[in-house]
């Protein structure tokens, strides 16, 4: 018995030491501030306590699907032309269903050719259904659509992470949110000034070069009239920034070929620079070698024609092709500032977002609110704890000391868990700590009440303690399991702060099982072993 007790005491002390290390690590000193610093090193505070911004973004993944089907549409057109099939129209009939491509107007003598081309080249990604009058409908396979959307989400997360990193934000969290809804959660600790960072996150930064088919016109109506009323399916009308074609040009409209010569993913590098003649800020960009080759071929074959540099669907620059251009170019004019040149070249380096982004939610907690919250949370915890401890002392006297020791150890182990697991302490998490105090003492009360009952029934102190623990333990397991089930559901469904609550509550209850059942028992046994048989205990 005595020896057993010693082992158990050593186990408890070991837990205590390990937990205290978990909370403080090895502090630089024992002064208040040194301990506080050490504590903050070990325990992660949530955004609601340390201040920062929490954003939820929606990636418009349909755009990525649309880009892919646009490119396939271009591919089909080229394939038909190469095989000498003229007169067929390739289009996307429903703007709300970007995954559907339609081919109409195929001459009767080419039906089998078209069928062959479609089946050999596009059947891996599309379901091909022939219709009446020599038409075909290509519908992208659901697996391919999902794959495209998922890739767009992954790429968006990657791009946003690089952009946020370039701002030097410490420990940002950027992760998918709400499985299957293509949303992203962005947490930026310490940022309470969003303007610029939000622009940077949201900017699609899609840089493309298009062949100019017509223009410029002063407005959209005139442009449409000059084309002849309807826009050809392979063209688009885009507005330019002022100063796109010459230093004093205004915002005008151009008809551009829809499929770009090269696009966002073809950029290898971009740097802020200065125009050698005017010394105005500009952005110099470089293409990958494959895109460079394509661009070289195109420019060589189209000398004298116009091309347009398009950024985020606005024409930035229109220029006449004077010779072969391979892999570099620049964006200049249009009132580019040094700051803009710096940001834009960073955006181009990190690559274009695969689809545009909408902000769905934005929460900002200023550092002062966080500091207030910590202060209030700590005061509430201490007040609650003191009230409970005082009550236990008064109501259970000697055993109250036992319960208070167990409760204190419970709290130390809980915080130790927090330190080791790297879990985040949020404001509701602090509430979880307070609740653990209240619910933790429940186990002690259950046991003590049962011991009192057994004593009243005439059992000896040792037997009463033994019976008290034995009977109470089933109930304790039941009550802990039900609360942990609730906490688990909260953890799965909750977001940031609420998750923090679920975590502290669960850790607290697990620690409580150890302290109320094991530690408290050891203290009783130690007391009993010092007493004569049958000598009463204080409870």
């Amino acid at each position, binding site marked *: 018995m005595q020896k057993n007790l010693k082992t158990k005491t050593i186990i408890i002390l070991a837990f205590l030491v390990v937990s205290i290390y978990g909370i403080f690590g090895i502090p630089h000193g024992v002064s208040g501030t040194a301990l506080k610093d050490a504590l903050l090193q070990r325990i992660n505070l949530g955004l609601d306590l340390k201040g920062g911004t929490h954003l939820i973004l929606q990636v418009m993944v349909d755009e990525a699907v649309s880009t892919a089907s646009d490119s396939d549409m271009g591919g089909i057109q080229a394939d038909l032309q190469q095989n000498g099939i003229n007169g067929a129209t390739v289009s996307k009939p429903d703007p709300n269903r970007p995954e559907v491509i339609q081919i109409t107007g195929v001459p009767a003598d080419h039906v089998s050719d078209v069928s062959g081309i479609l089946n050999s080249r596009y059947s891996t990604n599309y379901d091909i259904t022939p219709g009446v009058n020599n038409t075909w409908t290509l519908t992208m396979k659901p697996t391919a659509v999902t794959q495209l959307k998922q890739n767009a989400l992954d790429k968006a997360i990657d791009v946003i992470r690089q952009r946020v990193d370039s701002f030097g934000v410490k420990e940002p969290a950027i992760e998918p949110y709400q499985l299957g809804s293509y949303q992203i959660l962005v947490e930026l600790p310490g940022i309470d000034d969003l303007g610029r960072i939000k622009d940077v996150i949201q900017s699609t930064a899609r840089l493309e070069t298009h062949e100019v088919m017509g223009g410029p016109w002063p407005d959209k109506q005139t442009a449409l009239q000059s084309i002849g009323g309807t826009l050809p399916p392979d063209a688009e009308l885009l507005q330019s920034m002022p100063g796109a074609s010459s230093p004093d040009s205004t915002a005008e409209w151009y008809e551009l070929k829809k499929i770009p010569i090269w696009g966002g993913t073809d950029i290898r590098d971009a740097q802020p620079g200065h125009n050698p003649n005017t010394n105005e800020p500009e952005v110099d960009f470089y293409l990958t070698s494959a895109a460079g080759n394509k661009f070289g071929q195109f420019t060589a074959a189209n000398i004298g024609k116009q091309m347009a540099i398009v950024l985020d669907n606005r024409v930035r620059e229109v220029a006449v092709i004077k010779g072969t251009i391979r892999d570099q170019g620049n964006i200049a004019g249009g009132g580019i500032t040094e700051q803009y040149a710096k940001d834009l070249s960073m955006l181009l380096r990190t690559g274009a977002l695969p689809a545009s982004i909408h902000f769905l939610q934005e929460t900002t907690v200023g550092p002062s*609110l966080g500091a207030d919250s910590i202060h209030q949370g700590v005061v*509430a915890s201490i007040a609650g704890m003191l009230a409970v401890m005082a009550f236990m002392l008064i109501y259970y006297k000697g055993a109250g000391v036992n319960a208070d020791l167990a409760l204190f150890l419970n709290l130390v182990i809980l915080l130790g868990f927090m330190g080791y697991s790297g879990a985040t302490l949020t404001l509701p998490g602090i509430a979880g700590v307070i609740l653990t105090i209240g619910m933790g003492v429940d186990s002690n009360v259950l046991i003590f*009440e049962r011991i009192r009952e057994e004593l009243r029934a005439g059992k000896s102190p040792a037997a009463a303690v033994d019976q008290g623990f034995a009977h109470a333990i089933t109930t304790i397991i039941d009550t802990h399991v039900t609360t942990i089930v609730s906490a688990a559901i909260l953890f799965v469904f909750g977001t940031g702060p609420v998750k923090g609550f679920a975590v502290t509550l669960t850790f607290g209850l697990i620690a409580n099982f150890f302290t109320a059942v094991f530690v408290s028992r050891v203290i009783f046994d130690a007391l009993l072993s010092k007493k004569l048989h049958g000598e009463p205990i204080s409870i």
Partner: protein
Amino acid sequence: MEFFHDVKIDWLGKKWYFLGFSLIFSVAGLISLFFWHGLPLDVDFRGGTVVRVKFAEKPNVDHIRSAADKAGLHDARITQYGAEGNNEVMVTLSLQETSEAALDQGRANIVRTLDQNYSSTGPQNQGKLDLDNVSRSALVSWLEQKDPEHLGADSNAAETRYQQQADAFLHFRDDVHSGIVNSVDQIRGIVDPAVFSAFQQDGYLSGFHVQGAEIVGAQVGKQLQKQAILATLYSLAGMLVYLWFRFELIYGVAAVVACFHDTLITVGAFSLTKQEISLTVIAAILTLVGYSMNDTIVVFDRIRENLRLSRREPLDVVVNRSINQTLSRTVLTSGLTFLTVLSLYVFGGEVLHGFSFALVIGILIGTYSSIAVASPMLVAYQDWRVRRGKAAALPAARKARV
């Protein structure tokens, strides 16, 4: 010390009072939910914009309201919160003014309105730096640009120096003074004299400080509503399954009905008092589901134990005795948890107010329901079986897996 010694209360004899009590509260809650205040949802669920602002002096809410109205924010709701001396105000805009295209338009409008109309800002402050609201990065670059200590632009020394100065000022403003500085003179000695005179010359105190903002678009709000309902239902279902496994189905049903009763009354209390239900309130309600289950389980455990000991006694006698035997424990632990929750309600601050309110109500009701709802249901079930001529014995539950 002992509060309850050998109590012999006939709980089941009072079941009609209990039923009446529960009905009054549930029905009052339901009426408020459906016909009066409805379900007051927080911005998390409803969508919209909430901006928390702290003022240097006692804010004039009517003045702010009329200023907001003039600026075109017609349905802005302006409420004071927290302790009187804190001078804190919450400005709430509805979803209509929180379009997803320009999510933070509402906040920008509020801040601009305050800056123009409420604060001590005048034309003399044009182009100056608002020291009450400047963020760290903006302050550092402002100092680097002004360079009051003449350390040279773009030098590392300047960057480190001014970052340190900005941190010293922000620590003073945010951590020591909760975000607001009352007069520029207070800053003297906190930062270097050169920086201080730059503040004096080219900075001003707007008299208000934006502590935080929450902007939620319609889509996220709907998404969260669905999740909150699902989470509560899953939680109740989880409890049912666990109790079914540990006891018998009827115990599980009785406990879940009691829990549902608690949830309903708690939500009703929110509706009656017109307090908003936020995400953390949902967390509190789910915790209550677990907590209320605790009390019920303790009583049920005892009923099961007593049923095994004395199979001859009628069920209502056993149930009464079990409640009385566990009464001391039930009241004590609820009382202690209540104490901690009360300290949270009193000291925990505004952000956790709804959370602690839900727990304060829920713990009272949860304790009551384990005695007054769950246990009488067991007896009522048995009576019903007897009337239908089935075996009378309430299953004493499978042998406890100890």
